[in-house]
């Protein structure tokens, strides 16, 4: 009797355990889905629809399972796995190299029984913030599953050449290797805010402006703004963070933008601006040229164009900063975009900076600069 009950109990436990494992595998809990590759699905889904095929690829990329992702492609014979990998992560160190895929959006464009066109947006997150990579993807049926024709962007090559470098460079000799920043006992370069304009938006108050280095030496700059209430008490204080080019060569101007989320401009009586500047070593190289700049006011307004690296060195990270003016030359907006690929010598890369729709019609002109950071690699 007891052994019979025990046997039933044991069998019951085995069955329930097996059921729980099946449930947990087919309908995984959110944490299991997260670690298995994403919010929208797992690698276990068969690619029975074009959307499934794309979601599976997204999950595999998210898990860094490059071989699985490559093997799932319909057109893998057209390129190698390393080419596919570098198309996703960048051929040179860049924002893409250490990016994490956050999510995938799929927009069907056209579909038949045998193939489909999809607009796929990969939402990446990086140490410098998010970026998106949108590609039109062709998906084809192969028997009872769908597979992707990956629209690979192959590495671009620069023709062999010699590039003379004759740009200015300033070096600073410190007291010694242990010298600390800010204790140089050297007067900081002379910088001046040449324009400042607060604006009230739904997200809060934005303080934007332009900073000029009017000295003859380079400066490492930042700007801090303190909002003062109408009663004379400080409301909030914030700095430019990354919405400025921190390295200013002599006579160079940088735009800046300071955000005060959840602060209404109507509460503000005055704004105290505090520009800071330190003497630093700097070079005019690399020079980044902005080409084919065009403002598109219609629809989702944006400023598009290309940036081109005029030096012989790879620029790994670039931040495009644009200043927008109205027809009277008054500054009305500042925004920026990080380039997700490294800037190779002489090869233009597209940029596109969205502009708030309500400001688009007021914009009469714009000015774009590029802040850069290189890890020291050269183009081989």
């Amino acid at each position: 009797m007891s052994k019979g009950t025990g046997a039933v109990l044991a069998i019951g436990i085995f069955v329930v355990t097996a059921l729980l494992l099946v449930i947990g595998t087919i309908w995984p809990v959110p944490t299991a889905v997260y670690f298995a590759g994403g919010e929208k699905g797992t690698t276990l889904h068969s690619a029975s629809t074009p959307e499934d095929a794309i979601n599976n690829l997204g999950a595999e990329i998210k898990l860094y399972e490059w071989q699985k992702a490559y093997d799932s492609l319909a057109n893998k014979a057209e390129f190698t796995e390393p080419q596919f990998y570098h198309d996703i992560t960048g051929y040179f160190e860049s924002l893409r190299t250490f990016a994490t895929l956050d999510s995938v959006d799929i927009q069907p464009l056209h579909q038949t029984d045998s193939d489909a066109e999809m607009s796929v947006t990969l939402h990446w997150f990086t140490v410098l913030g998010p970026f998106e990579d949108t590609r039109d993807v062709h998906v084809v049926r192969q028997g009872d599953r769908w597979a992707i024709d990956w629209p690979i962007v192959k590495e671009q090559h620069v023709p062999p050449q010699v590039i003379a470098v004759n740009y200015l460079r300033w070096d600073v000799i410190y007291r010694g290797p242990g010298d600390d920043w800010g204790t140089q006992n050297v007067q900081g370069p002379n910088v001046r805010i040449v324009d400042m304009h607060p604006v009230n938006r739904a997200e809060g108050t934005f303080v934007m402006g332009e900073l000029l280095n009017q000295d003859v030496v380079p400066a490492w700059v930042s700007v801090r703004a303190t909002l003062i209430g109408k009663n004379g008490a400080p409301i909030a204080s914030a700095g430019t963070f990354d919405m400025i080019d921190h390295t200013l060569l002599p006579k160079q101007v940088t735009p800046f933008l300071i955000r005060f989320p959840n602060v209404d401009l109507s509460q503000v009586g005055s704004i105290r601006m505090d520009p800071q500047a330190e003497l630093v070593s700097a070079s005019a190289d690399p020079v980044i040229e902005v080409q084919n700049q065009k403002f598109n006011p219609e629809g989702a307004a944006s400023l598009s164009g290309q940036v081109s690296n005029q030096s012989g060195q790879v620029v790994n990270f670039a931040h495009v900063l644009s200043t927008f003016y109205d027809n009277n030359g008054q500054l009305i907006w500042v925004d920026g975009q990080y380039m997700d690929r490294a800037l190779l010598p002489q090869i233009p890369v597209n940029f596109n900076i969205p502009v708030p729709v309500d400001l688009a019609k007021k914009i009469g002109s714009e000015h774009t600069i590029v802040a850069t950071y290189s890890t020291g690699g050269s183009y081989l």
Partner: protein
Amino acid sequence: MVAAVVHLPLLIAELPLKSYDTNFHIFFASHYVHHWFNPWNTKWFAGFSQTTYPPLAQQWVAILSWILGLNLAYMAVQFAAILLLAWGMYRFASLWVHPRAASLASLATVVLASESFLIYNAGQLATTAAAPLYLLALPYLYEWLRFGGGRDFIKALVLFTTAGAVHHATLIFGSMFFALPVLALAFMDRDREESSAAGVWARAIGITIAVGIAIGLVLLPFWIGLFRYPVTQTPIPHQSRASYILTPFWGINYFLVPYGAMILLLPFIIIRGAVVPRLRPLMLGFWVCFLVGLGGTTPVGLWLLRRAYYVLTYERFSYWATLLALPIVGLLISDLLARYRRRAAIAITILAAISFSVAVAWTNYRPTDDFAFNTDAVAEWLNRDGHYDYRYLTLGFGNKLSRLAIQTTASSVDGESNSSRMLPELTKYGGAALTSAKYFGKGGLESLRAMLRDADTYGLKWVIVRDPYYDPLLHFTGWRQVDELDYGAVTIWAKDGVPPAAPVNQALIPPHWQGLMWGTLPVGSSILAILIALIPDQRRRRMSEDEEDAAVMPISQQNTVSGRMVS
């Protein structure tokens, strides 16, 4: 002796220093060394209260460090926990199985893979120190429930309270997985003793209330903090919540390694536990704990724990599950030895050795950190030229963050104790320590960006980087490299215009009376536990005689007798 032979060399070699949390516990202990009655620690999170974590294990490390130094003191406390586990398991297993099986269960704790995994890979001193105290308390609970002896009540009360002062989670979840089976056992055995059900219930309620009051008092500053500042921070991803089937690597890490050869016995644990009526509560406790320990592999953890599921980690549930299984494992081993003698002994020894070795060595196959990285130069830099007037942040230091905090007088905005964090930049985004921000994806990086944005607020002037991954972020957000250490392996970045660090979180500083309580009651409860262990236990001696009588019976006959007891 076996425990000493097996673990002492590993502990003297300070192997646990390679684990995730060992440095964290030593850091807390280092604060108690200097500020026994002041739990406010300014070295992390711009100031935080150590009353956010039960203190007893760390306080004992602090006490022993006056003789052994911090590292060896930690090893000594860990070794004491290993010895206590063998003792506790014998006493706990004796409730369920005959003494020979209990002895084998006790011996098995020495090479238990889940225990080794927690000691040498996870560094969970509190969990591994609380569990044996809890196991030691359970037989007194059983005897109190059945016989109502005042001495058993006092001993159970003191040991439960001491276990809670080491690790509150063990007490809370231990009640579910360990104490409920013991309660059920007391009911099952009650018929034989002609004790009324109402009496058992009354005694169960009585001791629950008493332990609740005692733990409430001993850890009062902890509960006050929890009540005033409940855990509302965004959950931090932890791989033990993965599905071990969908992501097999985490299955190896959190299932294969901690269970080791015990996986082969899982069906037999269920079968034996189901067939022998007296083992059923224990087996059911094991089964539920086992399912919860599978993390996201099944929905059980989420169903049972609700929101707490997203806060807890599940390697400790696997540890508890193996402890619950050990009495039955001892029984199975006893059977195997009786039937196959030397062949069984050789096979079991080999399997145990492999399980133990893999669990110990796992930290080498999957290192938690770069053990070779030495933070001396960084500490020396922070401790000179007034650098300590500002706060600092490390990036890419892993759990060396705690080691550095022990060495420097400077204050950081970061830290490793997730439950101690109050700064909104740290609690809002779902990242753990900023030093490892990139491993926590979007949440970790958002948290880091928020902290850098608010650098002026906290007097955060120095960012010390050991991972160039973060260099672009620092460059574009206004930080500038000003120095380098270890021939460029570590770079120091600074921000201009940052004011010197000023005290923050002042409202969170515990009042002096809480510091006094924190410095006396937890450690006082442990001293009391040591003293009551010296009091002779008449009833236990009588039970041991009974068990000796049972032990000479054939195993099959014992099962029959056990079955008859409840039928």
